[in-house]
């Protein structure tokens, strides 16, 4: 089984079970809504994939001659184009592309080693997951706690400093911020490594099963590898997570403040409920409902941030892959990555909607 398949099994089976549970237990409206959403996701991914296909092919430039460079003779270029099926009419190529999409076979890369995209994804997708998940958790952690704290102490020095933090951190260029962290913690203090997912030497002892190194180290009981994986995660996670946390602090703060002005908060106070329960239970829970939707919308920002973070930290994920392959006009690779991203966004927004409906009893679909 390929690492990609394993990961999808690890994530997919529990979510599928959960989904089935929700489908069985949920109201008819919710059930219908979820099914509709799933039904709509497929055409959405299809339309997006087609868009990317045509945009990539309309853009000037050619993967073959750009890979061969000036050494490629026209005959060579022509022959390779033929091998890759690039000399077919666009509509026939589109047909191939659709066939590939339906069979979930992403095809082969058009440049370099012409590897199957599925292999490239097997290496790159887990890397991106391993970066994006802890970064989101960190951002959420800082965002929710910081935002609530600031809202509860509105117009105090602490509130102003947290707001300042969120504005500054959000406006920092991610590559500059990452570089500063690398310089400070890597080069000057020498506390943390600044590149890669694992120490090269320890990495030789790690068996790759899922390509999620954290999981791989855990299941094989390779503790030194686990330590190395965690330590390598620190800087990229903090770079991406802190940058994202700025938005989350702002969003949480604004929503908690708004909620704190709601009548039921005054009513809760009038019943003698403790202030921290009022803030953290009543206000926060209600404030999180819109925040969660907004977080769902941040997935795109998260992925964009991941692209830059991966480049800075030489993190071999989907983001740096995408950048690399767009410039070499590797149509199939770009289509596949975008399709993957689209699926990811669709799945996350579906998840957010489901969570939303579970959190807010008023939501009726």
């Amino acid at each position, binding site marked *: 089984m390929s690492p990609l398949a394993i990961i999808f099994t690890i994530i997919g089976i529990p979510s599928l079970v959960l989904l089935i549970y929700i489908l069985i237990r949920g109201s008819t409206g919710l059930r219908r809504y979820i099914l509709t959403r799933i039904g709509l996701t497929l055409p959405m991914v299809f339309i997006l994939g087609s868009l990317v296909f045509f945009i990539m092919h309309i853009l*000037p*430039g*050619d993967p073959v*001659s*750009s*890979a*061969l*460079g*000036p*050494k490629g*003779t*026209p005959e*060579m*270029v022509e022959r*390779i184009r033929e*091998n890759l099926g690039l000399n077919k009419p666009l509509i026939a190529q589109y047909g191939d592309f659709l066939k590939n999409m339906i069979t979930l076979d992403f095809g082969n890369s058009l*440049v*370099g*080693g*012409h*590897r199957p995209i599925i292999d490239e994804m097997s*290496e790159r997708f887990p890397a991106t997951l391993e970066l994006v998940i802890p970064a989101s958790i960190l951002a959420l952690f800082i965002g929710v706690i910081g935002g609530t*704290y600031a809202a509860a102490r509105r117009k105090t020095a602490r509130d102003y400093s947290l707001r300042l933090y969120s504005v500054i951190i959000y406006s920092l260029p991610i590559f500059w911020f990452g*570089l500063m962290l*690398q*310089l400070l913690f*890597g*080069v000057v203090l*020498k*506390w943390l*490594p*600044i*590149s*890669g*997912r694992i*120490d*090269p*030497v*320890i*990495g*030789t002892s790690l068996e*790759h099963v899922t390509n999620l190194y954290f999981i791989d180290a855990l299941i094989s009981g390779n503790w*030194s590898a686990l330590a*190395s994986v*965690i*330590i*390598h995660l620190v800087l990229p996670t903090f770079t991406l997570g802190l940058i994202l946390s700025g938005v989350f602090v702002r969003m949480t703060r604004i929503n908690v403040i708004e909620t704190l002005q709601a009548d039921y908060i005054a009513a809760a106070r009038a019943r003698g409920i403790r202030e*921290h329960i009022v803030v953290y239970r009543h206000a926060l829970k209600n404030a999180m409902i819109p925040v969660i939707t907004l977080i769902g919308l941040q997935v795109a920002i998260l992925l964009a941030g991941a692209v830059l973070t*991966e*480049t*800075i*930290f*030489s993190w*071999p994920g989907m983001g*740096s*892959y995408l950048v*690399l392959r767009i*410039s*070499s*006009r590797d149509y199939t690779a770009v289509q596949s990555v975008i399709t993957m991203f689209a699926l990811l966004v669709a799945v996350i927004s579906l998840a957010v909607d489901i969570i939303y409906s579970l959190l807010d009893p008023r939501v009726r679909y």
Partner: protein
Amino acid sequence: MFKKSMYIIMGSLVIISMLLTACGTKTAENQIIIGVTDQIASLDPADAYSTHDWELIRNTGRTLLRWNPGTGDLVADMATGMPVISDDGLTYTFTMKDDIKFADGLKLTAPMFAGQLNRLLTIGPSCPNDVADTLAIPYVESITAPDDTTIVFQLKSAVAYFPQLVATAPYTPAHPDTFLASECVLFPTAPFYGVGSWFVSQFTQNEQLVLEPNKHYTGDLKPQADKIIIRYFSDPQTMALAVQNGEIDVAWRFLGPQLITELESTDGLTVGTVDGGAIRFLVFNHDMPPMDDPNVLKAIASSVDRDAISDSVYSGTVNPLYSPNPPGFMGATEVFDTMYQAPNLEAAKAFLADSGYDETNKCVLDLWYPPEHYGAETSAWMEIIKQQLEATGVFTVNLTAQEWSTYVPALTGGNSYQGGVLGWFFDYPDASNYLDPFVYNGGMGTDVALAADGSTFGVAINDKAQLLLDLLSAADVETDMAKREALYVQAQEVYADLVVTLPLFFQAEHITYRSNIRGSSDFGSPETLNIGGNVEFTYSMLTKEP
């Protein structure tokens, strides 16, 4: 309550990361980590055609002849000595040593080798990177092995530099169990074995590749380290930081001039400079106005001030180039300098005046360049060239930046451009590799000799071009080195007169390493870890002091 838990969480995070740091930085002593920003495109000798892929193939394999580390002298490796060449120059016969073994113990015989080399000829053209069409098929008719130690190359035409070709990576024996006869195997599953000093024991694409010593290796480039780990970076900046904080021992290609200057002043790091063969030049489409006018080209050649580019853009880390052949190659003379003495604006104006151009009737040039492919500095020095040309008062220059993927097809595919920027790096260190590709059969868009059916080198556009074709093709087959050199001296003069291309500068390669890394004193250039002018990096030379 909140504050307390926050402090506890923060505190424990710091402690955990300290602990992890402590146990994370244990590195075994004699393992050397080399960082690169390259990517592997193919590891099949019958297919691979990029510098980094070749470097790996050459470290894990051997060729009949090889260049000595540090100097680049051609010496015998798998062969017992230099080849026996037939009088017509068409048959090269090598005798192989009989102790050549793959790292898994398999013995390499001449028939096995010939079989794998024939694989290059047969399946090579259908492989994606297709090295065969450039370095084998145009030259080699057949490869045979009459006995277990003899290997015979029958050539299509006499080629004086064939020994150089035999030393390139495509002529490396590939393991018959790994590299099957019927298909190219670009990414074999590790471990896989060659006959060289090292074998690939682990390989994670885009992340790292691990080399371990070949126990059966009997050559004189014996591995000194226990392990070589090649680490792949997506960003040169990160690689520079990684060598600074010791995550990697060696930072190899490419760091770029700015980072190099930064690292040169860092304690504990040594930056070695190799006068490598990567050159940058302007190419012109000689078949398209106004570049079909020799006076215009000569005026350009008279206007460009190479020192200005080197000083202001590269702070002196590149060297001005005045010949099509970089210094050190056969027949290299600073012919552009003697001929045009640029910058010489008066001469440029005179050339243009001969063709009827003046301040009122300006000559308009469109020059293209790729903004990233040759480094982000390209746009800066193209701007300088524009200013220099326009300083004549007679040129008007339009610069267009075009992404590499659109730039290349436009440049090589017909009459859509006037002139632009190209870079070149030799496949084999011979003068012919710097001259022939720009002249023969369209010459990468220079169109001094138009490709035509039935002609070997193309049809020259004028008499001078014909003369150049004749000189180069004579030099290709001339085995008398003194005569060959004379032909190249003459050819370069015609080349400069035609301004086939305009050489600008050649780029040095830099290798940055931590001070406990050493090259070998038995070979040349230990200060660059025995990387010589041919930019061959032999990992066996490396040692690491505790």
